């Protein structure tokens, strides 16, 4: 990315954020540089998202949510599978970014991308199956047919910490949207350059606009905005700073946001079930 093939002219890319299906700069006009790991050589400039960018992203996510959850589960699975395909086709770009800006070894980067693709395929498959696994028919001692089914919570704020393994990040993102939630995600700070290929994957996978909104910026600056926003129904914090945890819980209490830790395994139903509401129906069946 840092140079054109066969050209001496380096074209450092300005990596834009991905909000409402569009590649946008921060409304604040702020940016920050990402360097080649261990050097002072500029790799790319990134947008430093602001409060108002979060607001725009939440509005987009909120508007996209009914349409996304209204699609058939099968169709959401198809789109997630398409995301896996597109990630595969951008494999070299992901690997290059990880080795250049994060100092990951080539082998580790390659296997991280492979696991991310596996996670996308895993949740693509589960999109129309988790209902059967997590829902239930409940025995009750009255003349009712009693069953429990799940619904997406709505708009989820996904906050990276300093660093999150790429496959874990992508897996959690896929798990959240596979049930019909929409996401406002703040990239983990040390990996925010991955926003570039990841947003291109999202933009070319038939994913409706606004379903996933990717922002780059500082967690310290933006977490309070996300946690206090009344249109966000659930938060997922991928870091382990206990101070941040308690702050998110306090701010989220106002509209009873659920503050959820990511699933313990990248590929597991826990990653889906944390972002569902369960509804139990008592249906009279006569005596």
């Amino acid at each position, binding site marked *: 990315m840092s140079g054109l093939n066969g050209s001496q002219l380096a074209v450092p890319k300005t990596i834009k954020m991905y909000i409402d299906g569009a590649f946008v700069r921060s409304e604040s006009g702020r940016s920050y540089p990402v360097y080649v790991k261990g050097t002072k050589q500029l790799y790319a400039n990134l947008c430093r998202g602001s409060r108002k960018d979060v*607001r725009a992203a*939440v509005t987009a996510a909120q508007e996209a949510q009914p349409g996304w959850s209204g699609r058939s589960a099968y169709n959401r699975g198809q789109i997630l599978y398409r995301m896996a395909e597109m990630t595969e086709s951008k494999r070299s770009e992901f690997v290059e970014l990880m080795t250049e800006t994060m100092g990951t070894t080539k082998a580790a980067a390659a296997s991280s991308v492979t696991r991310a693709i596996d996670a996308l395929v895993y949740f693509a498959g589960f999109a129309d199956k988790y209902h059967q696994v997590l829902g239930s028919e409940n025995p009750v001692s009255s003349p009712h047919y009693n069953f429990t089914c799940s619904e997406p919570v709505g708009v989820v704020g996904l906050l990276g910490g300093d660093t999150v393994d790429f496959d874990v990040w992508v897996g959690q993102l896929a798990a959240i949207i596979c049930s019909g939630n929409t996401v406002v995600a703040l990239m983990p700070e040390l990996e925010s350059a991955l926003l570039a290929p990841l947003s291109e994957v999202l933009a070319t996978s038939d994913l409706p606009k606004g379903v996933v909104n990717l922002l780059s910026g500082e967690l310290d600056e933006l977490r309070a*905005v996300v946690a*206090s*926003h*009344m*249109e966000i129904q659930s938060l997922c914090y991928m870091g382990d700073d206990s101070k941040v945890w308690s702050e998110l819980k306090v701010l989220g209490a*106002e*509209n009873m946001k659920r503050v959820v830790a990511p699933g313990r395994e990248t590929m597991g139903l826990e990653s889906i079930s944390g972002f569902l509401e369960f509804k139990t129906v008592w249906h009279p069946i006569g005596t």
Partner: protein
Amino acid sequence: MRDFINIKMPNGSEKPLPLVSVDKVGVTERANFFTTRSIKKDSKLWALYTAISMVDLTTLEGADTDDRVRQMCAKAIHPVSPYLFQEMCRQSGAAVEPIPSVAAVCVYPNRVKTAVAALKGTGIQVASVATGFPAGQVALDIKLQDVKQAVEAGASEIDMVIDRGAFHSGRYQDVFDEIVAIKTACGDAHLKVILETGELGSLEKVRFASDLAIQAGADFIKTSTGKIPSAASLPVTLVMLQAISDHYQATGRKVGMKPAGGIRTAKQAIHYLCMVSEVLGAEWMNPQMFRFGASVLLNDLLRQVYKQITGRYYYTKAFSLD
């Protein structure tokens, strides 16, 4: 093209009404200029409160019922629950005034009685659209009857539509006479004249229609019915404000302004306030001289007030629909 059109005034004299040319590019540029103000914190809160107090809360649907109108009147008196608002301010440690009532409710003539009863003693005006709203394509005697019924039912403001058919056919005298006749029928009630600018075609026509309505005795001029897609915009409002300003300088009579339709966000409302303040000045910055014809705008204003007080972005579900 002629420079002016002779209009026969009610007292029999003839008055040449100039056809003012309007620089469309210049107007648009100047109107955009009002959208670049940075209005924050206390000023923003003041603007939001002022805008709330200027809202003509409107319901003009075929499906309007008396209950719906009563519900809207309740919202007009207390846009939010005063107790809950006070509680929220206490928790946020903010010392702010209670949320004001809106300026008026705007309904169809058949619903006026209900609104008057619901708003008795509150000081909130009851406005009624009349004269065959929204098309205005009925005979004059029916229009007058429409107005009379609304006034008798207790409406203190009448929103009339001009006859765009006559205006486009060049029968300006007919349009003028009609406004004069309706103004007489209004008696003590204030008359707002809706130009339906989206159907007038050009800013010159908007300017001329404004002058015509002002000369005929309109207390307010209003942009739109809200029933066609092209509603109030900043350039159109600017042209109308300029007409008001020119009339004020010539005669000293103050005419009010009401943009209506399409103003949905607090941000837009603040742009309008900036424009009024800078074109007409502080004397127009009150509900007696400036109104917003709107329904969804109110909730966004409230949302922004809550944002100012609590620091949180609020959700729309926190406020009642009507």
